[in-house]
Every structure is written in C-alpha cells, then in structure tokens.
C-alpha cells in the first residue's frame, strides 16, 4: 500500500503535521535537531508500532502533552484504508489501534503497513549481539507469514514460564513447559530457516547492486546446541537438549537451549564478518542485508514496504550513495531518506523530491537551493 497522507499530532517535536507524501524518493533535509529523525520515527511507529531509535516509547509524546495520534491514509489501486493510532501516557504508553475506524488488535494492524527502517546503527547487524540479527530474521519471517507473530509471542511466554519454574526449582512444571518450548521453538526455527533461504538469495543481488568487492559473505543459521537443532526432527532434539542441560539450567536459573539463543552467523572467507570488515564495509553489508529483506518482502506482497533511511550519508561515501539511492527507488515506490548534507546526497538522486524540515513543519524545496 502507498501512504498518501500522513498526519501526526504531538509526536516528539511535531505538535501538528499533515503531509501529502510524494511518490518516489524523498530527501528530508534540515540541520541537526530539525526533527528529521523524529519524522522518520513517526512513520516507523505508525507502521511497525516500534521505533528504530532505542529508548522508551513514553518519550515519543511531545513534552508537556499526555497523548499522541498518528494517522495515515493508504491507497492501493481503488481501495483506500485509514489506519490510526492513539497513544496515551500512563506508567507505560497505552495504545489503541484503528483500521478503517474499527478498533483492531496489534496482530491485525501490524501486517497492514510495514515500514523498512534503515539507519546508521544498522552496523549492529555486523558488530552487535545476536539479538539484532534474530530481530532481522523474525521481522522478515513475520512479514512473509503473519502466524509467526503468534509463534514468537507464545515462545516468549513459554520461556518466561520455564525460567520462572527454573528459578523456583519446580521440576514437574519444567517438564510440562519443556514440551511447549520445544514445540514452539522448532516452529520458530523452521520459519527462520525458510526466511533465511530467501534472504540469502536476495543478499547476493543487493551486494552486486551496491558494488560489493571481495569475497562473498556467507550467512548461516547457528544454534549453540548443534546443527541438529535446525534439521528435521528439531523438536525432539530441542526437547532432549532441554532435558540434558536441566542441571546446569537449574544452577543458573534460566533456559540455555532454544532459538532465543540462536544466531545468524555471517562469515567472510571462513572468518566472522565483524573481525574482517572495516566500518565502511560493515555498513555496506548491513545496508545490503536490509535491502535484501525489503526485496524479499516486496516479492511476497503486491507493493514493497515504505523504506526510510535516517542520515543516509553517514558512513557511506558518494560512490556508494550513487548506487544505493537509485536501487532503493527501484525496490520501493516510497522511500524517505534524511540528511543534514543535501549537497552530498542530491547529486546521487536527480529525481528526488526535497523536503525541508524546520521548526515542526515541512516545506517542499527547490533543488537548486542546494
């Protein structure tokens, strides 16, 4: 779906904003502190219910206000749909979601308008902990197959229950939750593996588009329990491992086996990518991984997701930008990138619309100004 109009009220530095989004590539320009990241974050929260910027959701509300609203009108062919999100500040952020005026649960809202968010901390995909790579896989798995959300939530619940049983030393309850964990865990691993196959194919193409030089990065699913955890019969294997490590787990008070500890291994010529890549190369690989997941999502849906890229010129040089921006524009009908240096970015995207962010408002700008 295409986002035609986007409105936000009291989100971060925007008290009231209504934006008719152009199609194609949009460059958000403005000095530091202008609100560029805030606006991209509003789009992310609108579509994904979460932000790419770490921090508490309570900080999304404009200071001094108690609530925010995000509203977007989507269009695909002749059908149009209004999505709306109301959030109220309490101890946590209380949210209500609407689809065409009808209140819906998150599981129904989330698949409607996924937003692919690229940003400078994408390098965490290479240098960060396994949780970043798991999140990439799980998100993508969910966009390919919405039931994955249910599996993921149930797995987390079973894990919390099992950890509680471990902490209390309740052996009978442990047995019962072992089964459920192994059952859900195996389903989750399956979903990740089929996602990984698609991601792997797409990655090769994206690396070529961005001009990757040198040896090809290899993606491999990694389970500390051993490769049998992700072969056929994974459920039985996980169950056996849970039983085998029970003693250690009781001593440590948490679960040591299962997909919550698995990783997406990235190697280059047999060595971990994080050990051999420069910062610039790592950023390029991370960006390619993100592009690959956009390409995979696009292949499954009629229309590719909206893509945002915060501080697009940070760490990527002009040569990469001149390949990246046209590639983004081919992948998705709507791409919004931000930069504090439009003079660096604009030469790479002659077709882009330039929008200036300033003081909580947006203004389309003449390219010639830059």
């Amino acid at each position, binding site marked *: 779906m295409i986002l035609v109009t986007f409105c936000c009220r009291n989100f971060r530095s925007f008290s009231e904003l209504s934006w008719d989004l152009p199609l194609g590539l949009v460059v958000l320009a403005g000095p530091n502190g202008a609100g560029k990241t805030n606006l991209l974050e509003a789009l992310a929260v609108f579509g994904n219910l979460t932000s790419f910027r770490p921090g508490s959701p309570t900080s999304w509300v404009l200071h001094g206000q108690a609530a925010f609203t995000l509203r977007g009108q989507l269009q695909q062919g002749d059908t149009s749909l209004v999505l709306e999100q109301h959030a109220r500040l309490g101890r946590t952020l209380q949210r209500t979601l609407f689809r065409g005026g009808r209140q819906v649960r998150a599981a129904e809202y989330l698949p409607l308008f996924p937003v692919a968010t690229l940003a400078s901390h994408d390098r965490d995909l290479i240098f960060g902990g396994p949780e970043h790579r798991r999140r990439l896989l799980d998100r993508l798995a969910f966009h390919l197959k919405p039931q994955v959300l249910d599996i993921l939530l149930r797995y987390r619940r079973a894990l919390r*229950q099992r950890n509680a049983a471990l902490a209390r030393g309740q052996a009978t309850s442990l047995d*019962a939750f072992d089964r*459920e964990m192994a059952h859900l865990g195996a389903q989750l691993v399956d979903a990740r593996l089929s996602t990984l196959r698609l991601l792997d194919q797409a990655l090769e193409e994206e690396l070529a588009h961005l001009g990757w030089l040198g040896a090809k990065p290899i993606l491999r699913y990694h389970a500390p329990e051993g490769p049998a955890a992700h072969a056929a019969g994974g459920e039985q294997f996980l169950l056996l491992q849970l039983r085998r490590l029970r003693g250690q787990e009781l001593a440590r008070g948490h679960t040591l086996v299962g997909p919550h500890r698995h990783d997406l291994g990235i190697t280059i010529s047999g060595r971990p990518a994080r050990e051999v890549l420069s910062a610039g190369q790592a950023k390029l690989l991370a960006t390619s991984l993100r592009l690959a997941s956009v390409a995979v999502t696009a292949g499954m849906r009629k229309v590719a997701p909206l893509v945002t890229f915060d501080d697009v010129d940070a760490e990527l040089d002009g040569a990469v930008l001149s390949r990246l921006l046209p590639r983004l524009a081919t992948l998705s009908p709507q791409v919004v990138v931000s930069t504090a240096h439009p003079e660096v970015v604009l030469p790479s995207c002659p077709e882009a619309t330039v929008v200036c962010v300033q003081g909580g408002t947006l203004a389309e700008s003449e390219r010639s100004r830059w």
Partner: protein
Amino acid sequence: MDLRPPSLRVLMEELQKLPGVGPRSAVRMVQYLLKAREEALRLSQALAQAHRQVGFCPTCFLLAEGTCAVCDDPGRDKTVICVVEEPVNAWAIEATGEFKGLYHVLLGTLDPLRGIGPEELTVGKLVERVAAGNVEEVILATNLTVEGEATAHFLVQLLRPKGVKTSRIAFGLPAGGEISYADTVTLARALVARRGME
C-alpha cells in the same frame, strides 16, 4: 464537592470492581437500582444466597450447591472425564450438547510466574478419580494458551501410567485459545475431532 452519600459511594466503588464496569456504567447501575427498589432487593438477596449456598462440587469442582447436577445424573457416561480450567469452560462445553461424560475442573493451570504448581490445582483429586477405576478416557480441554498446553502435557505424563487413554480437543479454536470464547459449533467440532495425545 462529592454529592454522593457515603453508602452510594461505597456501592459504586464495589460495582466498579466488577469486570467491564467503569465509572460511567456504575452511575447508570446505581441510578437504575435506586429506582427499581424491588429488583435491587432481589439482586442483593440472590447475591447473598449464591454466596451462602454455592461452592465447588466435592468431586469435580464445578460450581454447585452440594454435589453438582452432572455427578448426580445416573445417565452420564462415567467412563469419560473432560478436564477444564474453570467452571465456565465446562458450561461452554455442556452447551454444545456433544459431551455426555463427567467433568473435572482444575481451578487454574500450571503457572510458575504466579507460583502455581500442581499442588495448587485439583490434580490430586483427578488422579484419585482415575485410580478409582471405571474411567477409560480423559479429554484434556484446557485452553490452547501456552499455560493450557503445558498443563495438558503435564496431565498426559501423569495419567498415562495409570492406563487411561488421554486425548486433546482439536485445534481451530479462536485466537487467544480460550475455549469459552469459541462459538458452540466450533467447540463441538473441536470435541468430536479430539486426538489422542502422547
């Protein structure tokens, strides 16, 4: 200034503790109850009586005045026991008309996060009923939540050595997996299509 007399304030506070009752519906209820004095009186008597007389059936833990109507009925199939989490779940299953056996209410699920293990449930009594002979099949109709599934696994392990057949209601139940939210037809189908569980 709060214009409500103290006894009404207490009544409204109590009403608001009920599920689904907010301040506005509490006001409406109080307004209604004060006008319809007869009905208000009947309500308070019904409530007091229910509390005095209703307890759990000593055998199956359905809500009952003494022994429940199911346990008392000689026409019920005493070889099958359907295990549920709460009495309301049994009501939903009974409404399908598909089930002619006996019930057993666990009064909860395994829930380590809340410190609830088998001892906090009516599991001991279930084992006793099965051990007394006669029972051929135990249908596990706990909710399809993580806790309900885990509890079903636990009961299978517990009951299998006793030589009784265990089965689980079939899937296809609504999101969230609470059997009381399922419509009667779906629930009837889930019962008929139950599967043996190892």
